[in-house]
């Protein structure tokens, strides 16, 4: 996030796109809710009718996968009606002219056709966002999980740059990070192309620094990204895989392929809290301690590094992940893994990572610190880009983006769009599914389908149906509701019993390499085949 969570309540205009905030980030959702009740404006762009749509001033119900067309149309309105922040663009941005050209080449009626949103609404939203301040944009997976997710993100940023809605309190572009420590995992260099703090592995200076600190030679070529791993495993290039706390069999797109790839591995080590679907395929399973059984830090979506503290002794014969890693590394004869506590590890991180330079356990004891925090005197950074952007020139880049349709489109055979969502009660699944109460609240998959489609298919509410894509079939119970528009159905991916990701499409965004979870073409069939006498499933006893 460019801003802090606590700044959200002070914004006067929200543009929420591709985020069901009240369900996925409830505590942030509430703040939007409170601000809107206090008179702030709310624009929501979402194909599904989320809770926020109900209190929105403008709800843009665009077709899944048409975000760029929508955002460009908004930009066009902003340019046409001279709602730009021209001095901001002049002082701090590059690329406006080229952008203007691309955007003006598209007229609004084309956008209306593609997105399904009336021109009137697009203009209203654009005017509202451009003219009310402080204005802030919030987005989540609904923007990134597309074959052109990087384009989506840039198109969002363009809007903020055009209107100067960035780099001030309560004003910015705020991606809501999913898992609790996604931010931290990125910061720590659990990425194929960078060390900690986004320092590039290709940079010889940086590499030298790490080689000296770690006392070894380091590879200069960036590694594969997660979504390419399975390709490489399938083709035999990668033979051994070590997974910590991940369950790709449940969470990756096109799981059929993933499982086949895993079966070709020579060695699979899984380190986790539970025997997940993936762990069941492993050669070695190492039982890890949970967050309540170890010390450490998490970094949240607003870049705040906060303490995690050991509350209880490790349950059973488990060990904290850091301890297991140290032991394996030392057993392999490696130096530099003789840590006795996470605090010692943080001391090493801090010397090698400029943005974490001032993070010590002592300083973050109370309420944490927001990076960049270069030294132990620095108070942390509540919002980014106040002075300069992180581009080499320090100027914001307005990038022309043209719309391209989703990688998979509907056709006669697969007439419906499937888009995935999350439930309030679960997060991915491994943890929350083990909480009896959370399971009781939402114990099985629900396929949301619009009454129009349900009627056409003669499907009843709660009926079990087959959802079929080009890649596979899963069973799910239907929930007929107007939450999804006609032509679109939606499912979560929290349930091992219903592996939604067997259906999803593995088309990757060319830059960020994120699979297109949000759009794939499916068809739905009734499960009961009336052509046989046999009615359905078992005796109901098992």
């Amino acid at each position: 996030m460019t801003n802090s969570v606590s700044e959200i309540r002070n914004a006067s205009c929200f543009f929420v796109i591709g985020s069901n905030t009240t369900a996925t980030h409830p505590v942030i959702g509430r703040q939007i809710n409170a601000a809107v009740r206090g008179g702030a404006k709310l624009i929501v762009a979402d194909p599904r009718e989320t809770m926020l749509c109900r209190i929105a001033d403008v709800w843009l119900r665009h077709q899944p996968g048409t975000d760029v067309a929508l955002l460009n149309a908004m930009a066009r309105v902003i340019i046409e009606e001279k709602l730009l922040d021209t001095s901001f663009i002049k002082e701090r941005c590059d690329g406006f002219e080229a952008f203007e050209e691309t955007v003006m080449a598209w007229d609004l009626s084309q956008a209306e056709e593609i997105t399904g949103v009336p021109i009137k609404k697009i203009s209203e939203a654009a005017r509202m966002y451009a003219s009310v301040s402080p204005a802030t944009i919030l987005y989540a997976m609904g923007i990134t999980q597309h074959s052109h997710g990087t384009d989506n993100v840039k198109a969002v940023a363009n809007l903020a740059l055009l209107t100067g809605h960035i780099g001030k309190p309560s004003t910015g572009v705020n991606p809501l990070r999913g898992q609790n420590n996604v931010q931290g995992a990125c910061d720590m260099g659990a990425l194929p192309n960078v060390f900690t703090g986004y320092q590039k592995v290709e940079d010889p200076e940086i590499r030298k620094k790490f080689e000296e600190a770690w006392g070894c030679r380091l590879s200069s070529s960036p590694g594969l990204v997660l979504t390419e791993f399975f390709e490489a495993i399938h083709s035999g290039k990668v033979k051994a895989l070590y997974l910590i706390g991940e369950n790709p069999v449940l969470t990756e797109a096109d799981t059929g392929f993933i499982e086949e790839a895993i079966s070709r591995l020579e060695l699979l080590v899984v380190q986790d809290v539970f025997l997940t679907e993936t762990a069941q395929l492993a050669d070695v399973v190492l039982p890890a301690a949970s967050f309540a059984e170890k010390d450490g830090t998490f970094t949240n979506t607003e870049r705040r590094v906060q303490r995690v503290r050991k509350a209880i002794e490790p349950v059973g014969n488990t060990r904290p992940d850091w301890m297991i890693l140290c032991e394996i590394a030392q057993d392999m004869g490696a130096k530099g893994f003789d840590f006795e506590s996470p605090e010692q590890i943080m001391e090493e991180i801090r010397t090698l990572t400029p943005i974490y330079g001032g993070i010590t356990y002592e300083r973050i004891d109370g309420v944490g610190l927001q990076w960049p925090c270069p030294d132990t005197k620095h108070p942390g950074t509540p919002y980014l880009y106040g002075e300069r952007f992180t581009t080499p020139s320090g100027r914001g880049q307005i990038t022309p983006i043209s719309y391209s349709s989703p990688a998979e489109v509907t056709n006669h055979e697969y007439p419906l769009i499937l888009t995935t969502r999350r439930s309030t009660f679960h997060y991915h699944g491994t943890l929350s599914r083990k909480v009896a109460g959370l399971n009781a609240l939402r114990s099985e998959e629900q396929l949301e389908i619009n009454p129009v489609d349900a009627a056409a298919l003669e499907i009843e509410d709660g009926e079990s149906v087959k959802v079929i894509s080009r890649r596979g079939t899963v069973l799910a119970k239907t929930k007929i509701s107007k939450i999804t528009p006609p032509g679109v159905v939606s499912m979560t991916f929290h349930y091992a019993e219903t592996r939604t990701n067997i259906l999803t499409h593995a088309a990757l965004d060319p830059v960020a390499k994120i699979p297109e979870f949000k759009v794939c073409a499916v068809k739905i069939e009734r499960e009961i085949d009336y052509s046989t006498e046999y009615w359905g499933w078992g005796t109901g006893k098992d």
Partner: protein
Amino acid sequence: MTNDKRQMTNNKQPMTNNTTVTINGLDVKVPEGATILEAAHIAGIYIPTLCYCPGLTSEGTCRICLVKIENKKRLHPACRTPVKDGMVVITDDPEIERLRRVTLELILSDHDFNCLLCPKSGTCRLQELVNRIGFDEQRLNRLNWVAKDLPIDTSNPFFDFNPNKCIQCGICVRTCREISGVDAIAMGYRGYDLKVSTFGDKSLKESVCVSCGECVERCPVGALVPKNIQYPTREVKTTCVYCGVGCGLYLGVRGNSIVRARGDCENPVNRGELCVRGRFGYGFVHSPDRLSSPLVRAYDPLERTAHGMDETGRPGKPLTAPLVKREGRFVEVNWEQAIKYVSSTLVHYKGDEFAAVSSAKCTNEENYLFQKFVRAVMQTNNIDHCARL
């Protein structure tokens, strides 16, 4: 136009204490717009309250906090009466005392007094008021003291609602509207039948309630209480493990078990609030499904020979029959064996034949160590995590 915009972002002026009130003869300086109750708190004067809850609007329904204001005929609820400069307030005299007693007696008259078995006993606001204000037993008996006998709503997996203990303070209703923004519950029915109910009087589970438990946290009595409540013997400050908001929370511990989670009021992210996952989702820590011992896949000797694999082939050497090995079963081993197995096998895969997936659930320190391990020991940059998902 940009300048106008910038001006609009101006913050409010800081509050100054510019209003003087006299409470029980004591002069207090308070910010303009403060209530009498807030002024009394600043002066360190106790006024009993029941339906007041910091952070919510005050509705002034319970009338326990009535106070006298000089030159005004009626008594005024301290929790929602703003102070004026020069106001003279009396918070306690025999008349106020008597009125408070009567109000309290009315509340008590249909309350299900079973304090010994009530999970709230000891921290209950009603008990506190009875101790502070007291009641007249004779008068209470004349009120035909019969406890309500309504069905208890146990449908929610995390908390129960016992309407027989409810004092209709409305805090839960306001919480659900103002804090959670859900509006799942409201005061339904009239007069004596007044009660907290969901839309259409359905059970909580069938309502739109999202089980965030904010109302449970604030209910002053034993009407909304967590299921299987156990009081912790110590609390540990930590961070929620579920989503990127990163709410600060306290885990309540008893023995080696987590028995409660509550929001950390000092944390600037959530200021004491939590959602259903943060508040009630810690149960996975004690799940019987937790892995408790390292596991290594063992193979049927028959199967091995059938596929031409050497009995002594493991541990140590890389495997050669990848499709077969998935069919073995797990055996429990001790940590030394497991570590030995992993380290002696991994040695054979240094370089780009190896790949690693780290976790967004692990700590920063662990993510750092893992990428260091992959880069420095396994000599490859094939490391990623699930940020993309």
